[in-house]
């Protein structure tokens, strides 16, 4: 009675809640409401499932609930914001592994046939692949493995053979499910494919990769919906799949690259164009000189990048923002879509440091303002301000939309040294006549800038 009439309503409401949750994410004003409705949806789905008649043994389920919450709560509250990309990668891995394990259990419970078998095969394949791929992405983000693209001879040929073999095993299993031994083969091949998918991808491409893995995780949940005939899973999975896909398309567009180029294009990246800039001169400045220029500036645009995250300089950057705002300077932050290691990374870091979000301006809106700006201050960003992307057709990043920092009256770049980033692309911006290089660690340099600015206020008073 309840099973047939009430429970479907639970699942329908849960699906509606997820749709609202994502809808309300469109603006910071409603986003927290979105989280709450999302939680309600999840609660409805879980309670609805627990009430099903075929669920009779609750002991292990509740132990898992308890342990999972005991791990999840500290994970959410203790995770530093700079580590959010890593956390996202590792939770993709957990989610995908869960899906793969469910697929495995389902398969061995009663060898399925027909379309259910097909759905289970795809579910398990995607689950295992996303799991190891996310672990590798985590390794790169945490710098446990080298962040540069790892390439070997014949890599693409090898990878395509492996992916082909994996797909072929999946098809074979779909045709003859009685060959049960094919299942572990498929699992191992999928796990392997996940590893090989990620190793040729460099750290700077991680925003695209994380978004893509998000999409895979969603799709695997949706295929599970087909295998278990659950509309709720199909809806939730499709929403996530769409979300991840859109984000990765946005990331690709922000780098003027195609999917194939991000996933299989590691070869073009390795070339280094050394020796080009060797004999060129750069102008460098001390914190004192830089503070003096900032002191006289009326408009400043700060361009943060991954370097700011690495140096944990976001709080000091906010102090700089306040010191400048106090003297009536107009300060904005220019956020490039691929700055950092995941979509929106810079926004979260600056929000954590209490920078008001209406000061965080997107690429399209701010680019016209650089020409009227006194100082463009680059903190730990590199490729996203490289004018070669705009002007030099032969550059590896040609066509990538950039922030036009070079058009500001004075450009200041905080950077550790003149070493090019791992992409190995020379940045013309550093050699311009109106560019000042501020050599040092982002955090300590911004700290001394703030100190100098405050000192000049006291001197004037």
């Amino acid at each position, binding site marked *: 009675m309840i099973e047939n009439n009430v429970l479907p309503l639970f699942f329908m409401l849960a699906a509606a809640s997820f749709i609202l949750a994502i809808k309300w994410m469109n603006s910071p004003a409603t986003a927290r409401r979105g989280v709450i409705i999302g939680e309600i949806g999840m609660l409805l789905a879980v309670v609805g499932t627990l009430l099903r008649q075929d669920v009779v043994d*609750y002991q292990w389920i509740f132990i898992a609930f308890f342990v999972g919450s005991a791990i999840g709560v500290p994970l959410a509250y203790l995770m530093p914001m700079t580590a959010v990309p890593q956390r996202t990668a590792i939770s993709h891995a957990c989610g995908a592994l869960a899906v793969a394990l469910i697929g495995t259990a389902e398969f061995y*419970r009663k060898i399925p046939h027909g379309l259910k078998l097909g759905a289970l095969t795809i579910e398990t394949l995607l689950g295992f692949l996303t799991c190891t791929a996310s672990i590798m992405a985590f390794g790169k983000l945490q710098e446990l493995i080298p962040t540069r693209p790892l390439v070997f001879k014949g890599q693409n040929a090898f990878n395509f053979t492996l992916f082909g073999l994996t797909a072929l095993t999946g098809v074979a299993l779909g045709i003859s499910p009685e060959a049960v031994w094919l299942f572990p083969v498929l699992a191992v091949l999928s796990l392997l494919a996940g590893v090989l998918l990620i190793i040729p991808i460099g750290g700077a491409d991680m925003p695209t990769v994380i978004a893509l893995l998000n999409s895979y995780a969603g799709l695997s*949940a949706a295929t599970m919906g087909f295998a278990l005939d659950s509309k709720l899973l199909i809806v939730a999975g499709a929403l996530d799949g769409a979300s991840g896909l859109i984000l990765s398309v946005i990331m690709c567009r922000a780098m003027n690259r195609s999917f194939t180029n991000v996933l299989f294009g590691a070869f073009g990246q390795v070339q280094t164009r050394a020796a080009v800039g060797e004999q060129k001169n750069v102008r460098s400045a001390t914190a004192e000189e830089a503070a003096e220029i900032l002191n006289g500036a009326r408009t400043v645009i700060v361009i943060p990048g991954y370097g700011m995250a690495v140096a944990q300089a976001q709080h000091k950057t906010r102090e700089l923002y306040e010191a400048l705002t106090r003297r009536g300077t107009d300060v904005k932050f220019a956020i490039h879509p691929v700055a950092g290691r995941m979509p929106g990374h810079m926004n*979260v870091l600056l929000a954590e440091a209490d920078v008001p*979000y209406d000061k965080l301006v997107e690429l399209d809106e701010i680019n016209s303002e650089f020409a009227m700006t006194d100082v463009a201050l680059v903190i730990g960003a590199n490729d996203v301000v490289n004018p070669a992307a705009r002007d030099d057709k032969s550059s590896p990043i040609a066509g990538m939309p950039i922030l036009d920092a070079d058009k500001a009256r004075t450009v200041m770049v905080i950077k550790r040294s003149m070493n090019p980033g791992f992409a190995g692309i020379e940045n013309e911006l550093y050699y311009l006549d109106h560019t000042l290089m501020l050599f040092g660690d982002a955090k300590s340099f911004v700290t001394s800038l703030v100190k100098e600015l405050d000192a000049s206020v006291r001197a004037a008073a």
Partner: protein
Amino acid sequence: MKQYEFGLFVFMLAAFLGFELIRRVSPLLHTPLMSLTNAISAISVVGAIVITGEHGATLVSRILGFTAVLLAVTNVVSGYLITDRMLKMFKKRGPEK
């Protein structure tokens, strides 16, 4: 095979809805969006519950199910909480001084 046809329809509609909704999300919130969808995709917990709790489940499928519930619940809990923690930080004006 009516059931699968219906499922595919639902999938297609949900995917289009997803595209339309997510296109409207401000880039400002892309990171919280990703951790929210991450939590939502842990909806796979419902499949895991059925496998773990069903009558006469074998030891192997109970272990697999238990692990899956554990992993999914970890994602649900940490995903929602960290999303909220991030969103709390987005303020229109700086701290009151």
